[in-house]
């Protein structure tokens, strides 16, 4: 039997292995001192965690929370606000049609200007999401990396032009700069200068200098690094994604 995984050892400690698996593991543990030692280490960790003392919350916390709760209770709720708003609208009923007309006009103007903007700028190359991932996007990545065997983490995705209709514009812009970094055109995609796409499409370890340079740019990759795994770049149409594969 090959060495059991950490997961199997931990599940064994929680007495959640099925009988046959448990016996197989126990016979391995009798022969393998390395695994036995690891198991004992994990057992000690569990014991130490179990013996941590329960602390009483500071006395002021309860008082503070009761006061804050009382404040919340006296604040008008959303229902109160809506009821109040509804009453106001009833009183000033003549305002409603005027407001509706103004809103409709604003919407029409916005839609028209958006169409014009698209016509003017639709073929100009744009770079999307070059900033590090926002906090709002971070949670799903952390969740998914541990949950799936391979995850497309859009840590830094680069988009290229939407259409083929303006080759002369693209030729005039062989490179773009943003936040002190240079991006070069690679087919339909903008790639950061110094990043060898051909090599990078293959599976890379975090020791690779190219990956290390990305780790410095995107702290989120550092987080993934601590989970252990490899990354590669995946080119899909106009978007380059950094794909993280945790250790199975």
């Amino acid at each position, binding site marked *: 039997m090959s060495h059991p995984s950490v997961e199997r050892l931990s599940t064994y400690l*929680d007495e959640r292995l099925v009988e046959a698996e448990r016996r197989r593991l126990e016979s391995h543990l009798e022969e393998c001192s390395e695994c036995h030692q690891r198991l004992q280490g994990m057992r000690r960790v569990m014991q130490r*965690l179990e013996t941590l003392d329960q*602390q009483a*919350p500071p006395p002021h916390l309860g008082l503070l929370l009761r006061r804050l709760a009382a404040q*919340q209770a006296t604040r008008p709720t959303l229902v109160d606000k809506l009821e109040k708003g509804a009453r106001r609208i009833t009183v000033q009923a003549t305002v409603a049609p005027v407001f509706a007309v103004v809103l409709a006009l604003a919407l029409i103007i916005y839609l028209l200007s958006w169409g014009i903007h698209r016509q003017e700028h639709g073929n100009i190359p744009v770079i999307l999401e070059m900033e590090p991932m926002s906090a709002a996007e971070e*949670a799903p990545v952390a969740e998914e990396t*541990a949950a799936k065997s391979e995850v497309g983490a859009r840590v830094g995705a680069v988009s290229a032009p939407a259409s083929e209709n303006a080759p002369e514009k693209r030729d005039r812009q062989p490179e773009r700069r943003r936040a002190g970094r240079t991006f070069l055109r690679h087919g339909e995609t903008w790639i950061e200068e110094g990043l060898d796409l051909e090599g990078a499409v293959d599976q890379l370890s975090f020791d690779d200098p190219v990956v290390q340079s990305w780790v410095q740019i995107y702290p989120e990759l550092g987080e993934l690094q601590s989970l252990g795994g490899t990354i590669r770049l995946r080119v899909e149409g106009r978007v380059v994604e950094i794909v993280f594969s945790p250790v199975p």
Partner: protein
Amino acid sequence: MSIVSASTMATTDQELAERHRYGDPEAFEELYDRFGTMVYNLALRMTGKPEDAADLCQDIFLKIYRHLGTFHGRSSLRTWVYRVAMNCCHSRFRRQRSWRSRLLVDAVEILERVPDERRSPEDNALAQGTAELVTEALSRIPGVYRQAVVLCDIEGLSYEEIGEVLGIRLGTVRSRIARGRDRLRALLEESS
């Protein structure tokens, strides 16, 4: 726990939420009395610092106050409270990218605790030293592993309950607990 007592508990949980929904101020007080210590200790294990724990605990209870009315008893109130608490921890973790590094510096402050009079002074010192090491090690492992290990080994939740609290599958629960424990093992062996 017997089936009868479990169902009684569920009714009480829902009654508490109902009372809160209808504006009974004592319902929230009762909730704090029931879960205050549990939530504070959870916050303490997740943040590593008493003052941060108190702050986080405050956020958690205010969130509970605002959303208790939406509790409909599909899970136990305890599980629901854990879920709210872990969501708050996660939000805080995302907001404060640097908290892990701060924890390393300040982990020693966790030692400001009242000695347990049931133990001898030597045992108290030993327990305190162990707690310090464990707290520091906990603060150094990734947040997702810390959540799973704290819920399993300190709070004593089952894999199924942890899955419900964190909204993840059983396989992921098992994997996070295992990796968390192994990281802690390595860190503690390194420090000793």
